């Protein structure tokens, strides 16, 4: 049995929206103490790693661990008009093959969502030792990514001891965002080794856009030609993305 209550339904929708940037059919792992998901997109270029401990919920009841697969895009469709002051209650009804969503606001709205068959195992997280760590404001990161997307399909991340540079160039021109250690947007830069890698902007833009409303702060971690980790710390819980680097031919 699984049942949970979240105080801010809109926040929950934001989290589901972040997951939906990579997966359609999402398999959630629910145990006594947490609600989590780890999945790759179908091209195996990116991964989302999401975890909310039971303490993040108003109410959380799970007597036996269970896997729940739903189509997140369908869930988002149902939740399109949720308000921040609506409370979301979820109840897993395996007997009828549904996840029941109840929104309590000025009145009660009941939705139900079909459960899908769970296929495949949860992937492990990539093993990488990150040489560059940048803790920064999410909106500044978003601005740098959006700017880059105006001129190119991919973006280069470069980190030196006291500077993080996001740059892109294409046929029409080039864009560069320079974050020095003492700039307003930066909380902390720590670089063990100069690092640079190139990433796909399509993925990056969607991830950062989706995370903007959820977390004010982003932790960007990478190493030369290794996958990127984007960590968006939640008040209670974690939302992390991994993104494989672009193959550099030169």
């Amino acid at each position, binding site marked *: 049995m699984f049942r949970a209550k979240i105080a801010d339904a809109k926040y929950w929708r934001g989290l589901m929206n972040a997951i939906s940037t990579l997966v359609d059919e999402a398999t959630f792992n629910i145990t006594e103490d947490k609600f989590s998901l780890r999945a790759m997109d179908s091209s195996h*270029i*990116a991964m989302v790693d999401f975890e909310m401990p039971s303490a993040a919920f108003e109410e959380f009841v799970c007597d036996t661990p269970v896997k729940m697969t739903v189509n997140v895009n369908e869930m988002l469709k149902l939740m399109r008009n949720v308000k921040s002051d609506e409370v979301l209650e979820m109840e897993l009804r395996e007997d009828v093959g549904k996840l029941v969503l109840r929104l309590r606001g000025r009145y009660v709205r009941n939705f139900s969502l079909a459960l899908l068959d769970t296929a495949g195992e949860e*992937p492990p*997280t*990539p093993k990488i030792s990150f040489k560059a760590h940048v803790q920064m404001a999410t909106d500044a990161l978003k601005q740098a990514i959006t700017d880059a997307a105006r001129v190119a399909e991919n973006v280069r991340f470069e980190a030196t001891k006291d500077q993080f540079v996001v740059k892109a160039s294409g046929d029409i021109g080039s864009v560069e965002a320079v974050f020095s250690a003492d700039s307003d947007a930066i909380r902390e830069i720590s670089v063990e080794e100069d690092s640079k890698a190139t990433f796909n902007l*399509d993925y990056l833009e969607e991830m950062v856009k989706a995370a903007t409303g959820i977390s004010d702060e982003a932790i960007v971690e990478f190493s030369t030609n290794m996958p990127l980790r984007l960590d968006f710390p939640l008040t209670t819980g974690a939302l992390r993305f991994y993104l494989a680097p672009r*193959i550099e031919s030169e």
Partner: protein
Amino acid sequence: MGTNIGELLKRETSSLTKLSGKALAIDALNAIYQFLAIIRLPNGTLLRDRRGRATSHLMGLFYRTINFLEHGIKPIYVFDGRPPRLKEKTLEERRLIKEKFSREWREALEQGDMVKAFKKSVMTAHVDDVIISESKELLTLMGVPWVQAPSEGEAQAAYMASRGDVWASASQDYDSLLFGAPRLVRNLTIAGKKYYPKKGIVEDLIPEVIRLDEVLSSLGITREQLIDVAMLVGTDYNEGVKGIGPKTALKLIKRYGSIEEVVRARRIELGFDPEEVRRIFLNPEVSDQYELIWGEPEYAGIREFMLERDFSAERVDRGLERLRKAVERWRSESLIRWIS
């Protein structure tokens, strides 16, 4: 076309998303016929440029291929070569059918019956050398590999799939299973819809995968026996036996073991030599002279090629933008490298 054994074959539903990351050998002529059949104006006229050249196939090929690439599918188009001698009769019949439908289409147009005209027109799709060479040219510009089969395209696709160079053969016809493809993907090249001219209805089509080993184990026969079943029903290389449908054919082959034994036991007159047809399926003419490389598209070249054929610049540019994004995604490594 092909062989009518579909109802016997166990299949699973799939989707473009589920096929992500997989290389598929697409029956090019089969796809081009579908584009020419369906991409038409309401009165059944093909899309043409100002000089009168047909462009329906280019429209289909361009957008559908982009759609595959966006889903991470790696398409390889396989073109038919010289047909086996035994296919001549089938080809002649198809030509006559097309002539008949062309006549009926003209009549319907004269009567001003547009619904009927469209129904008739889809049966008149005709592929010529220009259509084939233009299709190859567009694919080359798009950086998408294509393979020229020495003979049957489906045999070539099956060969590539059995060697593991591609994950599956993709066609509406079932022949590639008879040619030994371990997997066949159907409903891939039509954009989610199928038009049934006889009934005048449109139905949603969902990609499906048919696995040869599952077909054989569910039917309890060997591939050679499946070929025998198909021969009884009729293939492109032989006429079937009158009155024998797929279910009866399966029952007979399971009971007697082979088509030769069925013929002997039931005193059936075959109008063909089963050994000759069997040889086409078991030892088809194929080539290993192919390279599967997805190159960088020539964006300016594609644009020029399409605009020269009166495609709207705005729409082509939108397509090219999608292509650019799709190809760029391919340039990323896979996370799997860091997981395992």
